[in-house]
């Protein structure tokens, strides 16, 4: 076996190489020639996910629990597939808000709450310390195996920790992390050296693992076929690769997949490399498939190594097959390479995790306490900056020592995988706060805080405390029977839920209570205005129009901001913030942008919650607080709404007044028509009256008038009187029609008989000498419903009109009656001049012929009132028919057509009388 010293030299030499790489990358970054601004380096740095747990533990788990080990990598594969959506959003938020860690992220999302940040930091510290211990233990174990000491010392027992190399590894790492991870105060700045070193380590561990795999397949066996045929020949081995070997079966399978998915996004170190260290959003797209490919590559050899280990040296611990296989075959150089690979995996994780945790401890735990101290507040410029860096460095040492102590005290009680999964379940409690807060603006700090607290308590009861009990620290009878023999409180069968594996069981209850409280409490409590603003900024981060939150924050002199920056961050940082702002006088009021920049600069170093407290301490006076502002906003919105309503009302008023105007115009028009009507009626009445009076006066004044003259004058008087009374009758008819008081006596009428009767009556009335009247009726009868007297009036009126308007020299009229689908059409045509297209409706207006005459037509004035057609049309309309002017079918003049519906058959006609 290799000498212990040689191995130590190689190990510390490797750590020295990391120093060189990190220093080189930092130097390049200072020259602005970054080595980490490549998507491939980004993907490799994410591979910090693969720790010593992957390197040694995967094989162990595959040997014991079959393909279930893959779930730890399939979960992150699913998460990475979604990373162009989820992680991209987180990166954008982190850049806008200068986020330094997952605790800072959650605190910022829920109104920059210090207590929530502290809670996340404490949970992370409790959950991750065992995980760091696990890495130290892997280093110690692998070193012991490599140097042939199967009984590696239990360290703390004789106070001989200085002889334990894992202690020294922790210390060297602490120095490394302080140099490359806590150089700047601004924790939101990228740690280029660290990222470069971690990416390099990812390559080393992958190469080492693949080397063991190839060695196993092609040196220990004759290729994959040889190995797998041997496995197939051993049924006990083949069975281990089925689903039955997975603890908890199908439910355990899904539980583990969910656990790995959530933990991948919420582990502090993953948040660090995925979000805080992200240089360029576009790198996410490459990493989304390249990192899963890395996972596939590092896992592809797990099954062969596990099977080979079980076949060849089934006696040793499966967790160390990776090392014992080459060692057993005497491959010294390969064994050392594998040890270095494991060291890479362990140190990579410890470096990033410790940086992430120390940022949380200093910003979320130490700072809020320090800010309460009056002495520190009054300290001079730069003192606080030095203090902060000191706190961060001390916490780095503290965290690593805590991990070491955990490892030294109980590290051996568990297999690697078990410790890792306990940590996973702890950080998975951040997932609801993180992921739901990213998409649901309604989640608030009360819900999230209570949810996380409940989740972590359930986690402690179902996973952590039983773990302590199993390692012999506590009496483990309560695990078996429940505390005080209360059966339903048994940690691993809560509420009698048995038959699941312990991780799925714990995840179900802890995440269940976490989610239930998050939703339940958020829905029934009110978020503060700042929290609502932050929620909107986080959930709407991908919407480009959402700028930074530039609400007026009150007044402060720029000098106060400058002093704040100098005191906490040093003069250099203060100058950087003020570069874009020309400030003439320190007593000037600071612009809101400057206040925002100051708060962001402070947030990058101290975390969002502390930065908020500090800026609020100098921004004061008549500052309108957010409540007032939101109140103003509310009232403005109310006024706007009222304005909108007023606008609507005035619009309605405008419409109504337009309607009124048109109604008024119509009324005026009707009034004018009425005046015209009265004037026309008077005119029409005056003409016969004048002649009657004139003849009557002649008769009175000339008693000696010859008899024949006297009788002629009397004739004229009688005729004019008849005309007068006819006219009055017509005016009355018209008035009745228009007011709807014209009463008709509807009955079955035979239109044919009626027409003949009318023609006879007409012939008696009009003694026109050479009138040619054709009556074209080929129907035996035409039954309609109508008032016979009124219908006769209409027909006579139509005939009379035709006579009046026909050619004076050779008057010719034709009357026809025909049947169509709807009823009967009675038409009267003449050989007059006809009626032009645009006159056809106007002939139905009252006294239309008077205007006709005024138009200057040479036509002698026909006798008649000009009321006949309007009355006829009114009567026909009341009988359900139509009266209209059409082109004359056979004669050159006009044709008036009356359409009447046919009467229903006798049986139905009787019905109305019943």
């Amino acid at each position, binding site marked *: 076996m290799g000498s212990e010293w040689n191995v130590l030299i190689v190990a510390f030499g490797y750590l020295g190489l990391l120093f060189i790489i990190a220093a080189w990358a930092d130097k390049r970054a200072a020259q602005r020639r970054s080595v980490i601004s490549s998507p491939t380096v980004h993907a490799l740095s994410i591979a910090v996910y693969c720790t010593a747990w992957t390197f040694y533990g995967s094989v162990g788990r595959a040997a014991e629990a079959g393909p279930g080990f893959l779930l730890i990598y399939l979960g992150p594969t699913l998460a990475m597939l979604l990373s*162009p959506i989820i992680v991209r959003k987180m990166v954008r938020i982190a850049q806008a808000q200068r986020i330094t860690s997952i605790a800072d992220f959650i605190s910022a999302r829920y109104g920059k709450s210090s207590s929530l940040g502290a809670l996340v930091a404490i949970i992370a510290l409790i959950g991750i310390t065992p995980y760091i211990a696990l890495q130290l233990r892997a280093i110690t174990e692998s070193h012991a195996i490599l140097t042939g000491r199967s009984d590696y010392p239990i360290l703390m027992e004789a106070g001989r920790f200085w002889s334990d190399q894992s202690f020294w590894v922790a210390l060297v790492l602490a120095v490394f992390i302080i140099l490359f991870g806590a150089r700047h105060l601004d924790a939101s700045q990228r740690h280029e050296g660290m990222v470069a070193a971690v990416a390099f380590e990812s390559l080393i561990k992958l190469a080492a693992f693949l080397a063991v795999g190839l060695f196993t397949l092609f040196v220990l066996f004759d290729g994959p076929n040889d190995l797998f045929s041997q496995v197939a020949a051993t049924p006990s081995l083949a069975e281990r*690769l*089925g*689903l039955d070997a997975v603890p908890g079966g199908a439910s355990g399978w899904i539980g583990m997949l969910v656990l790995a998915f959530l933990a991948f996004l919420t582990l502090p170190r993953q948040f660090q490399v995925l979000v805080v260290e992200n240089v360029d959003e576009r790198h996410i797209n490459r990493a989304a498939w*390249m990192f*899963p490919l890395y996972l*596939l590559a590092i896992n592809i050899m797990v099954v062969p190594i596990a099977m080979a280990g079980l076949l060849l040296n089934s006696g040793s611990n499966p967790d160390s097959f990776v090392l014992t296989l080459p060692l057993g075959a005497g491959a010294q150089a390969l064994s050392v390479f594998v040890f270095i690979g494991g060291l890479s995996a362990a140190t990579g994780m410890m470096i990033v995790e410790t940086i992430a945790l120390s940022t949380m401890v200093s910003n979320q735990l130490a700072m809020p306490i320090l800010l309460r101290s009056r002495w520190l507040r009054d300290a001079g410029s730069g003192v606080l900056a030095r203090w902060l860096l000191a706190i961060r460095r001390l916490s780095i040492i503290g965290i690593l020592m805590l991990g070491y102590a955990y490892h030294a005290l109980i590290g051996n009680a568990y297999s690697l995988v078990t410790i890792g999964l306990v940590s996973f379940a702890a950080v998975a409690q951040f997932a609801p706060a993180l992921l739901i807060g990213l998409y649901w603006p309604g989640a608030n700090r009360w819900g999230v805080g209570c949810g996380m607290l409940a989740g972590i308590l359930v986690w402690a009861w179902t996973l952590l405390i039983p773990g302590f009990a199993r390692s012999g620290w506590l009496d483990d009878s309560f695990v078996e029977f429940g505390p005080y023999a209360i059966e339903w409180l048994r940690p691993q069968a809560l509420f009698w839920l048995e038959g699941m594996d312990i991780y799925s069981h714990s995840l179900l209850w802890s995440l269940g209570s976490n989610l239930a409280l998050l939703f339940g409490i958020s829905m029934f409590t009110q978020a503060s205005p700042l929290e609502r603003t932050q929620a909107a900024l986080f959930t709407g981060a*991908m919407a*480009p129009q959402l700028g930074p939150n530039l609400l007026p924050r009150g007044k402060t002199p720029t000098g106060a901001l400058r002093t704040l920056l100098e005191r906490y961050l040093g003069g250099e940082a203060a100058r950087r913030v003020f570069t874009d702002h020309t400030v003439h006088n320190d007593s000037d009021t600071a612009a809101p942008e400057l206040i925002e920049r100051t708060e962001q600069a402070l947030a990058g170093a101290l975390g969002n919650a502390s930065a908020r407290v500090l800026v609020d301490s100098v921004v004061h006076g008549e500052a309108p607080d957010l409540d007032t502002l939101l109140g103003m906003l509310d009232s403005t919105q109310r006024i706007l709404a009222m304005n909108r309503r007023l606008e609507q009302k005035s619009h309605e008023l405008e419409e109504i007044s337009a309607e009124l105007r048109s109604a008024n115009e119509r009324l005026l028009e009707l009034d004018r028509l009425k005046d015209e009507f009265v004037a026309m009626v008077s005119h029409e009445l005056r003409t016969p009256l004048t002649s009657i009076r004139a003849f009557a006066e002649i008769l009175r004044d000339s008693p000696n008038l010859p008899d024949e003259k006297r009788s002629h004058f009397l004739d004229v008087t009688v005729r004019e009187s008849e005309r007068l009374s006819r006219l009055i009758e017509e005016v009355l008819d018209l008035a009745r029609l228009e007011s709807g008081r014209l009463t008709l006596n509807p009955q079955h009428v035979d239109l044919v008989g009626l027409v003949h009767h009318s023609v006879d009556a007409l012939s008696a009335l009009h003694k026109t000498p050479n009138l040619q009247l054709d009556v074209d009726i080929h129907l035996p009868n035409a039954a309609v419903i109508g008032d016979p007297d009124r219908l006769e009036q209409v027909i006579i009126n139509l005939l009379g009109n035709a006579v009046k308007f026909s050619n004076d020299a050779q008057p010719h009229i034709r009357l026809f009656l025909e049947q169509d689908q709807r009823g009967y059409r009675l038409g009267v045509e003449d050989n007059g001049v006809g009626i032009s297209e645009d006159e056809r409706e106007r002939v139905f207006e009252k006294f239309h012929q008077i205007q006709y005459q005024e138009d200057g037509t040479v036509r002698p004035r026909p006798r008649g009132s000009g009321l006949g057609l309007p009355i006829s049309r009114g009567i026909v309309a009341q009988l359900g028919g139509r009266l209209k002017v059409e082109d004359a079918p056979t004669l050159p003049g006009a044709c008036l057509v009356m359409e009447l519906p046919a009467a229903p058959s006798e049986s139905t006609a009787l019905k109305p009388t019943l």
Partner: protein
Amino acid sequence: MMNPRRRERLLGLTALATLLFTPPLLLMADRIHGGLWLPVYLFVVWGLVIGLAAWLLEGHAED
């Protein structure tokens, strides 16, 4: 902002991968006699999903 079509496809691919990685479909591979088939199935599906993701994210020009 991500192209909505690509976003849909990515969500679809994730849903498909989840289906293929979880029991109802997984049981098919597990039921085949011989034991070794479940890991083989997982690795093949895994590789296909990664290939599809790479094609989806690299194959189109950035919107």
